[in-house]
């Protein structure tokens, strides 16, 4: 039980850190902590296979993708010139809107408490690591490749569509690669002082990559 509350605290704190961090890289670190805590929570829910998948796919693949894009977009920009992302005027209103939505969900939950009944169809729950127990690889695979084969095949289609879409989107349709390499990289976030300096035409030799 104490594990749940510790993990809940870690999850909420890291999630708040993700959305308040000044730089995208800090957000990625917060997201890493969030995903890891969530994987541990999956273990407490007897979902050992999905805990591993969470680490491999989220902490591995998706976060590396984020880090690569951040590195790509800020290449050639001196780190200290990448200004902090501003929290726009929508900060107060957005926070209030999210809190109202959360209050509505909590209200709905308390009005209609979920009725819990045991249901069969899966392997019995056992300690994590038990062969063939609920949530183990064998149990998961049995369900995935028999009852839920159609959703699994649809997943393959979704992934193929994603691959085609990424190639179409990011494919080389613009200027040639040499021209793009010569073009100056701009910071992903706007820094008013830096903009003003640029408009005044001041030399910006310190930005040279």
């Amino acid at each position: 039980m104490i594990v749940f509350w510790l993990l809940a605290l870690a999850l909420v704190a890291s999630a708040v850190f993700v959305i308040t961090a000044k730089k995208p890289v800090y957000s990625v670190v917060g997201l890493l902590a969030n995903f890891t805590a969530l994987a541990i929570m999956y273990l407490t829910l007897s979902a050992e296979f999905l805990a591993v998948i969470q680490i491999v796919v989220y902490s591995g693949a998706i976060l590396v993708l984020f880090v690569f894009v951040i590195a790509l977009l800020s290449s050639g920009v001196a780190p200290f010139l990448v200004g902090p992302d501003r929290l726009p005027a929508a900060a107060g209103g957005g926070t209030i809107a999210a809190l109202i939505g959360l209050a509505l969900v909590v209200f709905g939950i308390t009005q209609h408490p979920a009725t819990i009944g045991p249901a069969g169809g899966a392997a019995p729950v056992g300690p994590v690591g038990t062969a063939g127990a609920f949530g183990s690889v064998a149990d998961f695979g049995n369900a995935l490749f028999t009852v839920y084969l159609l959703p699994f095949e649809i997943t393959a289609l979704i992934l193929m569509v994603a691959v085609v879409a990424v190639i179409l989107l990011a494919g080389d349709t613009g200027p040639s690669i040499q021209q793009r390499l010569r073009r100056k990289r701009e910071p992903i976030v706007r820094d008013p002082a830096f903009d003003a300096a640029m408009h005044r035409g001041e030399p910006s030799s310190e930005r040279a990559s």
Partner: protein
Amino acid sequence: MSETSLPVALINYIGLSAVLFFIGVAGVIVRRNPLIMLMSIELMWNAANLLFLAFARVWVNNAGHIFAFLVITVAAAEAAIGLAIVVVAFRRAKYVDVDEAALMKG
């Protein structure tokens, strides 16, 4: 398997999932950096997944595990496409700020 076999009552998992989801919503609303907005969307996917797995555990039913797996797959596809769009937008325009993104205006 009854609810009492969970480490804590199911309502705690639902509440935690709701909190995480709306932290993600706040991130999408407040932040204007597309990368952090995408990360907030990942937070929301994960909140939904937590709910899937909590209910799967309570009902000892595999369906929640399967669909959490599918959600992870779709989230990976979404992240790849979203990041490709960010890269393309950054390539075409000077800044990446969703308030200034007008590439779809034609």
